[in-house]
C-alpha cells in the first residue's frame, strides 16, 4: 500500500467518527430540545430585549448561563450580577478545557478554536467518556465535532422555535416558573457527594437570607459562600 491510500483510509475513518459522534449524542439531543424550547419561550416572555436574548444562543452558547442572564436581568438585577453569575456558572468549562487539552495538543489552531467554541457539558462528557486514551486523539477530534455540532444545531433550532412560540403563550400559564424548575433540576443532578450537598445548602441558605440585598447581590454572596463551604467540607472529611 502506498502513502496515498493510507491517507484515504485515515480520512474515511475520520468521516466515520463524525457520524459516530453525531449518532452517539442523539439520545442526549432529546433531553436538550425541551431545555432549548423552554429557554426560548421564557426569554421571549421576559423583560430582556428579545433580539439580545435570542443572540445569546450563539454568542454565549451555554444554556444554564443564558437562562441565568434572563433570570437576573428580567427580575431587576444589576448587569454586574448577571455577568458574574453567568461567568461563575460557565467556569466549569475551565475543567473541561484542561481535560480536553490532553487530546488536542497536536491539532491546528482553527480546530482548537472551533472545539472551544462548541464546548458543552454534553459534548465533553460523551467524547472523553469514549476516549480515555489520549493516543486516540485523531479519531477523538472527529467524534467530538460530530457530537458538538449536533448539539449546537439542536440548540439553535429549539431556542429559535421557543422564541417564535413564546409570544403566543398567555401570562396566566406562569411559565416563568420553568426557570427555577430548570435550575432546581440541574442542582439535583449536580449534587453528587457530601461536600457538594454542603455547598448547595450553604449557597441556597445564604442567598435566601441575603434576598433583600439590591440587584440580586444575594446571589453572588450565596455562590461565593457555597464554594467556600464545599472546599472546607472536602478538607475536613478527607
Amino acid at each position, binding site marked *: 500500500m502506498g502513502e496515498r491510500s493510507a491517507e484515504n483510509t485515515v480520512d474515511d475513518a475520520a468521516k466515520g467518527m463524525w457520524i459516530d459522534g453525531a449518532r452517539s449524542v442523539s439520545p442526549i439531543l432529546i433531553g436538550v430540545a425541551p431545555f432549548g424550547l423552554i429557554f426560548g419561550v421564557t426569554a421571549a416572555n421576559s423583560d430582556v430585549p428579545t433580539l439580545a436574548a435570542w443572540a445569546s444562543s450563539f454568542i454565549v452558547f451555554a444554556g444554564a448561563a443564558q437562562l441565568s442572564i434572563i433570570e437576573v436581568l428580567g427580575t431587576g438585577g444589576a448587569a454586574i450580577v448577571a455577568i458574574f453569575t453567568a461567568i461563575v456558572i460557565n467556569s466549569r468549562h475551565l475543567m473541561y478545557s484542561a481535560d480536553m487539552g490532553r487530546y488536542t495538543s497536536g491539532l491546528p489552531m482553527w480546530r482548537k478554536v472551533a472545539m*472551544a467554541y462548541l464546548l458543552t457539558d454534553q459534548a465533553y462528557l460523551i467524547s472523553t467518556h469514549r476516549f480515555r486514551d489520549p493516543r486516540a486523539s485523531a479519531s477523538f477530534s472527529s467524534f467530538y465535532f460530530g457530537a458538538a455540532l449536533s448539539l449546537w444545531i439542536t440548540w439553535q433550532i429549539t431556542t429559535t422555535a421557543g422564541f417564535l412560540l413564546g409570544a403566543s403563550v398567555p401570562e396566566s400559564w*406562569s411559565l416563568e416558573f420553568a426557570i427555577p424548575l*430548570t435550575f432546581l433540576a440541574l442542582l439535583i443532578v449536580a449534587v453528587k457527594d457530601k461536600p457538594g450537598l454542603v455547598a448547595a445548602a450553604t449557597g441556597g441558605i445564604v442567598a435566601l437570607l441575603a434576598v433583600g440585598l439590591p440587584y440580586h447581590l444575594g446571589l453572588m454572596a*450565596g455562590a461565593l459562600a457555597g464554594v467556600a463551604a464545599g472546599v472546607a467540607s472536602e478538607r475536613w472529611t478527607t
Partner: protein
Amino acid sequence: MTAWVVIIIVGIATFAMRFVFIALFGKVGIPGWLETSLRYVAPSVLAAIAVPAVLAPGGVVNLWSPLVPAAIIGGLAAWMTKSIGAAILFGMAALWLIQWIG
C-alpha cells in the same frame, strides 16, 4: 443595550474559559486550588438561584406560596428521572393544579 453588553461580555469570557487550557496545554496546567473550587461551583450557584426564586419570589420570603409544593414535586421528578424535562412537566402541572384548586 444593557442586555447586549452583558451577553457580549459573558460570550467573550465563556469562550476564553473554554479555550485557555485547550490552547495552552503542555505549557500551563490548571492550578490545584482552582480545580478544587470548581467542583463546588455548580451546586453553589444553582442553589443560590433556585432557592430564593422558589421561597422568596419577587424578593419577599413566602413559604406558603403555590411555588413551594410545585417545586417539591418538580424536584422529586428530577431526582427520580435525572431529567430537566420531567422536572418542568411535573412542576408546572403541580403549579397549575394548585392554582386551579385555590
